């Protein structure tokens, strides 16, 4: 791979929506796509700033998502609220450690991993790090791919709440934590799309020389 030249360096911009490669009107004002009319950006405008904002927001929401109960189970008059970690501990102590592991990974590790991954990408881009560009790209793809599956928890929660409403005997109600959990997922998804992966290659001049 010897394509060291980027479109930005050539003064060209690829339209993100229709894929038309255009010449930028000027360096400061890239203008609009002549085919689809969407605004052209050599790099996503304020990508790092926005992603940071969203990642920080997600990180803030991550705390109550894990501290607040996500599910309230009412059995014969007594209501029990369970947090995500409480559920993991319950599953583990009741013997089904594979389930506990799944919940732990899907509900705790993955959102946290996404936040860390995005943070790492942002920091590395900001520091104009030029090492392991491919790995970072792969990481970004993974974050983007996982994003759509992260709502599984919320989905299960809403499903259970909708199904288990046998009012006097048993009822399940959503806890406040699930809202924060959903917010974490949504914010990280948006953050992943806001992050411009092109920035990864902007740093440095000769990344390939190091990696080989």
């Amino acid at each position: 791979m010897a394509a060291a030249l980027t479109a930005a360096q050539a003064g060209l911009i690829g339209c993100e929506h229709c894929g038309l490669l255009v010449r930028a009107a000027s360096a400061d004002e890239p203008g609009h796509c002549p085919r689809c009319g969407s605004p052209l950006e050599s790099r996503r405008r304020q990508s790092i700033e926005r992603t940071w904002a969203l990642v920080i927001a997600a990180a803030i929401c991550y705390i109550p998502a894990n501290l607040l109960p996500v599910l309230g189970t009412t059995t014969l008059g007594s209501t029990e609220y369970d947090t995500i970690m409480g559920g993991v501990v319950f599953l583990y102590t009741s013997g089904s450690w594979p389930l506990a592991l799944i919940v732990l990974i899907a509900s705790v590790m993955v959102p946290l991993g996404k936040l860390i991954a995005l943070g790492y990408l942002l920091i590395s881009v900001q520091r104009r790090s030029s090492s392991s560009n491919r790995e970072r790209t792969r990481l970004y793809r993974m974050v983007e791919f996982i994003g759509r599956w992260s709502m599984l928890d919320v989905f299960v929660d809403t499903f259970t709440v909708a199904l288990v409403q046998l009012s006097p005997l048993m009822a399940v109600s959503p806890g406040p934590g699930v809202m924060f959990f959903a917010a974490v997922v949504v914010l990280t998804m948006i953050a992943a799309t806001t992050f411009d992966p092109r920035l990864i290659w902007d740093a440095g001049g000769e990344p390939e020389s190091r990696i080989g």
Partner: protein
Amino acid sequence: MADALDSNTLPQATLTPPRRSRISAIWLIPLLAAAVAIGIAVNRILNEGPTISILFQSAEGVEANKTIIKYKDVKIGQVTAVELHQNYSKVMVTARIDKHAEGLMVEDAKFWVVQPQVTLSGVSGLSTLLSGNYIGFEMGKSSKPQRHFTGLKVAPVIPIDQPGREFELTASDLGSVSVGSPLYFRRLQVGQVMTYQLAPDGNSVSISVFVNAPFDHFVSAQTRFWNASGVDVSLGDGGLDVRTQSLVSLLVGGIAFATPSSAVEPAPATADTTFVLYADRATAMKQPETISRHYVLYFTESLRGLTVGAPVTLFGLPAGEVADVGIDIDPATTEVRGRVEIVAYPERLVSDMHTEQSSSAQAMVQNPEQSHAFFQRLVMDRGLRAQLRSGSLLTGQLFVAFDFFPDAPKAEVDWGPKMPVIPTVPGTVTNLEDKVSDILAKVDKIPFETIGSEVAQTLLALNEAIKDIDKAVNRIDKGVIPELKPAISAVRSAMMSADRVLKNTDATLLGKDAPGQLELRDALQEVSRAARSLRVLTDYLERNPSSLIRGKNGEKP
């Protein structure tokens, strides 16, 4: 590759005026998230109630993060941890109390584990069967906050805010009273026993009872409490007396109370007033004796049947009771004698008096000198004496009766000793015993042995007479029948001679006198018929002589 691209052939981007703001609106999102999260955190912290610890003997059914604390069925907290404590002898339950219930955590607040309980007096905690055990809470009266509590073993019987009053009862023993035992007023359940405990000196039991609100007005200073547990059967001189409050009290015990009708001031008693718990209703309802005089009586007769508490009567009216029964030695004669200590309640007699006289009598009773003089005069002049009498022949209960015995030897009240000694006369019981022994002595004198031997002789004679009769019968059998033969032949010869006489008389009779002849003929026919019968008889007898004894048998002659 780059050369192939002619940058000039590429489309040119259109230009629009720039719209840029300094700070991106995107930062509103983390700000919002932070605001919400901080808001929730602040809310949490503000709503965070105190964390308390409760020591229990056992944490049966208490689970961390599941068991809740309820007050009036409202959740006020949740158990966060259950762990062993104090050298593993107790269980420490840590619980987080809701903010709104923080003010309830005061010094004398009570905690206990609610679980289903089935007792004789009812079923409680059934709801825990479905919802699991929870920790019950009861508010305290104090305002001093506290964070460490000791849990109760059982739920308090009476909620602290239940209107009513608490009273203390002192009893010699607990009887069958237990926590939760009902309290009755006119057989209506009006309260419950709350707690009981042994007095520090071990001599009595103190019982706290709670009387519910509308009924606590009926408890006045004069109210009497008595143990209504089980069946109270007493066999006194009044006969068999059975009293019980209710079937429940039979099983779980109970306490009843009433105010005597004579009580003058029915002002409600203040809470925590101490009352005496009497053993039974009769004891409880006795008039309060403000004046009591102790006397000693000496008896030479048996005191069997005389018990402490036996009535002392004057003219049959209750005047006191026996306080002590024992023996001592007469210092003068060194003889053992029965010593009966009685306590007299002169006011009882006063209350039985005519209303007009009662006030003056009351005045006299109040004055010891005057009443002593009056009593002395009764004893000396009128012959007032104490006597043991039988209350019931069946049970042998004795009581002390005062009566007038004008014929009794002169005696006087001995005021000398600590307690005045009242002269006595032998009781009717002894007389009765004497009479019975008299009768027995007379019965003893009856010569049963002589009578017996005479009877034996008579029987012997009778036996011989029977033998004689036997012999006579034998003799008849053997002797009489053979002797009948000559008799029959004699009859025959008599007949023949009669025949001859008739033949001779024929001439005279068959004369002119026809009627006589006819009559004679009839007569003769009768005679001949008789003779024929006789012949038949004699023939038959000849053939069957035994028929004289045994009668004719079936066959005809």
